[in-house]
Structures are given as C-alpha cells and as structure tokens.
C-alpha cells in the first residue's frame, strides 16, 4: 500500500502514455483562516479512469472538487484539468459536475434548467432539443421535466443533477456524493450509469464516503482524512496489500498463539477463530501441516481479503488518534 503522495504519482504514471491527465494537482492546499481544509494534495487522474475520492465527512473532498471546478481558489499548489487551470472558463468546457447539495433554481422546471445549462455549455438548439428528453429518460425523470424543481423530491432533484452533469457529453464528470439522496435501487442505477460512462471512455471523479459505492465502480481510490491523502492506489492493491488467514482450530491456547506468531501477527481472536496477518498466503500449507502435527484439530484455514471498509477504518482511525 502506497501511503505517500509520491508513490501514488509513480503508480499512476506507470503504464499510461504521455497523455494529458484529466486531473493533475500538486501540493494543493486550502486554508479558511486558521482552519486548513486541504493539505498538500497531489494526485493524477488519467483519461478514462474512474477515480474514487474517499473519506469521512469534512475530510476535504468537496473542497478539492470545488478547486478543480474553479469555484474555490486554492491557497497554494497547482491544479490542472486537462492541462488548464480550472479558473479559466475554457478549462471547464469538457467537465460535468454534480454538486454535493444538488440545489438548483427551484422556480424553474427541470427542462428549463437543462436548457439553461445546455446554452451555457455551448450546445445548439437542435442538440438541446434532442439531448434533454433523452437524458430525462436516462435518469428516470421521463415525463417530469415540465414540473417545477420545487416540487421534486430529493431523489428526483439528485437525478436532475446527474442529467445536468452529463448534459453536454463531458469527458470528465465530477460527482460529489452522487447517491446521497437515493434509495438502494437508485444507488444501483447510478453505479450502472458510472460503469456506462467508464465504458464510453469518460473519466469519472467520484467523491464519496460510501465504501460499497466506490468499491463497486472505481479503478483507483485515494483515501483522505483531515485534508490529507492517507492512502491511494488501485483498489486491488489497497484491498490486497495485507493478507490475512483465518484459522479455525478445536482450541486456542498459548502454545497455538506462539506457533501462529512464527508465521505472522495475530490480529484478532474470536472464540476458537484466530485472524492472522501474514506476508504471503504461501505460508498456509506449511502452517496447516504444523498445526496438525502439533496435535490440533484444524477445521478451517481461510484466506481473508480485507475489505476497503477495514482499511478505511484503520487509516482514518489512525489519523484521528494521531
């Protein structure tokens, strides 16, 4: 697991050509008075990637995204979107955005709002006329476009927000907690939508504190806590970096723990189940043989992959305690 920004960058750059990154930041920092919302954020998202920005509430995720959209000015460091500073309006031409609180002008109808945003995005009349009904259908708002946003439920408003983000077929979509107001079915629909975008080659930058959401769709994640990236890398690497073996024996005694301690570090003991952190799964066959020859009855020896949630809780917990 790469815990520093520099290794994160190295892994990101490896295997990708000299393409202009969709997002590149270096040493990005934002302070509101004495409160530092974002420390030294350095990351790189390649075109076509689905990148998860994961962290508890208040970790600085939204601040980072707002800087990338030119809504917030950084206190230090640099941010580039497709090679241009996001403060330039032209840099935002290829970007779609779903804000965290998805609040829109409530006096307008959904269609009017889409039309307004289509004009701002530089879409022609014919293109808008074709795209708007299609998108309303796609996000599950077919037939509701003529209603005022005021009358929309929270879930409908978030769906409208998704339609706004995808309106002009952007190359980069930034979604800030895109499923916060959706029910489980809606969440699944959004996951499918993100996969479709990924298949179409669209870069997705996803802010979330929902691990399952990120686990299900992201190629790469960065975990942030209190304004710092505490871990980042491809999801498989993060989740698979530490391997555990779950040992089920007939009894747990001091001798057993001493024996297991030779192969790894005992993480947990629950009843007669011992979770052992090991460097490699290759120790399993030898461990099994030794346990049996030492007189233990072995009921199970199972490799356990740590979930993103475990990693998340460990890392964020560490930061909070530290």
């Amino acid at each position, binding site marked *: 697991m790469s815990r520093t920004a520099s290794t994160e960058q190295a892994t990101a750059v490896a295997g990708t050509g000299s393409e202009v990154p969709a997002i590149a930041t270096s040493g990005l920092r934002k302070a509101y008075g004495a409160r530092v919302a974002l420390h030294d954020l350095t990351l790189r998202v390649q075109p076509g990637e689905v990148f998860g920005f994961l962290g508890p509430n208040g970790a600085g995720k939204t601040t980072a995204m707002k800087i990338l959209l030119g809504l*917030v000015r950084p206190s230090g460091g640099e941010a580039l979107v497709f090679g241009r500073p996001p403060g330039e309006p*032209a840099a935002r031409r290829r970007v779609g*955005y779903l*804000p965290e609180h998805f609040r*829109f*002008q409530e*006096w307008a109808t959904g269609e009017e709002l889409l039309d307004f945003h289509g004009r*701002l995005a*530089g879409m022609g009349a014919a293109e808008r006329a074709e795209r708007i009904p299609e998108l309303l259908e796609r996000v599950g708002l077919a037939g509701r476009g003529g209603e005022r946003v005021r009358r929309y439920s929270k879930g409908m408003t978030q769906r409208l927000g998704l339609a706004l983000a995808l309106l002009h077929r952007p190359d980069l979509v930034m979604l800030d907690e895109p499923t916060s107001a959706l029910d489980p079915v809606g969440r699944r629909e959004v996951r499918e939508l993100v996969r479709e975008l990924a298949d179409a080659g669209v870069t997705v930058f996803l802010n979330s504190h929902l691990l399952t959401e990120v686990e299900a769709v992201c190629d790469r994640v960065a975990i942030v806590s209190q304004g710092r990236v505490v871990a980042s890398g491809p999801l498989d690497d993060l989740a698979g970096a530490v391997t555990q073996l779950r040992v089920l024996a007939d009894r747990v005694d001091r001798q057993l723990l001493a024996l297991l301690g030779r192969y790894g570090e005992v993480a947990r003991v629950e009843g007669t189940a011992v979770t052992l952190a090991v460097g490699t799964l290759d120790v399993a066959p030898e461990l099994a043989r030794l346990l049996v020859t030492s007189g233990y009855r072995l009921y199970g020896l199972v490799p356990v992959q740590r979930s993103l949630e475990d990693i998340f809780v460990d890392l964020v917990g560490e930061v909070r305690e530290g």
Partner: protein
Amino acid sequence: MSALVVARWTVLEARRRRLLLAGALLSVAFVALFVVGFYLLYRTQQRALLQEQAQGAGPAGGLDGREELLAMSTILVILGLYGVQFLAALLGLFLGVASVSPEIDSGALHAVLARPLSRLQYLMGRFLALAGLLTVYVVVMSGALLLTARVVAGYQPGDALRVVGLMVLQVLILLAVSLLGSTVLPTLANGVVMLILFGLAWLGGIIGFVGTIPPGNELMANLGTAVSLLLPADAVWRGASYHVLPPSFLVASSFAGGGGDLEFGVPFGSVTPMAPAMLAWAVAYPVACLALAVAAFRRRDL
C-alpha cells in the same frame, strides 16, 4: 454570449417569481391614482379660478390664474415622479440585493459557475437583465405621469428626456451598489446596509436643501454634498426634478429675484440644476460599483 444567456435566465426568473406581474399591477394602480388625482385637483382649481375671475377678483398675491395652475401642476408632477423614483429605487435595491447572494446561499450557483462561464459574464448578465427591467419600469411610469400632465393640463416639462434619463441613472446607481453588496455580504446584512445607505442619501438631500434656504448655511450644504458622494441617488433625483420645471417657470423664477413668490423650493426637489462634477460622479459611480463587484466576486470562494 454567456452573459446574454444569464440575462435571459434572469428575466425568466423575474417572470416565474411573479415579479413582473406584481410590479405591473402595482404600477398600474399607482398611475391610475395619479391620473385621477391630477385630473380632479386640476379641474377643481381651474373652476375655482374661473369663478374668482367671474367675480372680478384680481390676481391674488401677484400670481395670475395661469401661473397658479402651472405652479400647482409642477408640484403635482414632481410629487408623482417622486413617488415613481421612490418605488423604482426600492425595486432597484431589492433586485440588486437578491441578485447574487441568495444564489450563493442556496448553492444554486455552484452548478452554474462550474460551466464555462466567467464570474464577469455572470455578473454582467445579472446586471443587464435587471437594469433592463428597471429601465423599462422607470420609462413607462414616468412617461405615463408626464403624458397625463400634458393631456390634462397641457403641462410641458423643461426637458422630459433628461428627467427620464436621470431617473434611470438613479435606479442604476442603486442596482449597482446593491449588486456590489450582494457579492460580498449575506443577503440580510446587505439589505440592511443598503436601506441605511439609501436613507442616509435621502437625509443628505434634505440637509443640503435646508442649507440652501436663505440666508443659507454653507456647512449644511456641504454636509449634504458629502453624503451625496457616498450614494449619489438622491442627488440625481434632484437633478432630474430640476428638469421637470417648465421653461416659463424657470424664466419667471430667475426674474423674480430672491424672496419673490416664485422663489419656492420643495424639500424633495430642486430648483437648481445638478453640478457637472456631481453628474460625472453619478455616472462613474455605478461603473465603479460594478468593477468592484467583479473584482470581489472573482476572489470569492463558493
């Protein structure tokens, strides 16, 4: 282009929020009241004069009947226009106060400004639309009043174009300053600040007026000017009210010399034209407000 998209959206918002409808209905009521009031007062006065003349009474206090009618018409038109500028001023302040900060507070601006739209374009779009609506409002309302006076009393203001032009300038000053406030202050705070500023400017006008009452008080006149510099809205209205006065009135007034019966001023109008320096300041003021608003808004984190 993007500024025009925002302007169009702003007009749609005014329509959707029933602002246009409410404004139109109230304005029609106001104009109707003026038409009826002006007609009735004018006719009553006219009849009384005819009766006096029939009874052979001479012109009272040095004024002949026609001059008395003209003086009355002038005061009524200035009062009516004063009402129009007051309504337009409040409208300008409210629209300006509601132009940016409520959209920031609600978060509705996030999605909009994430588009390829500069903050300058956004502010220009907002200002253009609101300035357009207010201009139409002032032109229609003041035009209706002046037309009424003309039809009923044959009243000709000194310079109708300058009256309307300065009244439009006044409302643009108020729109620009409250839009500036809207980019730096929360909505409620901005509303309070703007009303206080507006009240101060009004008070400054009164103080300045009192300073000109013979024998004159230089300190008060200067104090009035100083307050006008802070917000030249009332000064511009006074400049407009000068051009309401009919030419014959001005000629008579200048011949009457100090202390004559025609040497009257009204606390809410002016019998002297606006100083060129003050006019230049009044034109530069909204431009400066907009420039400051853009500079402040560019730096603002959303």
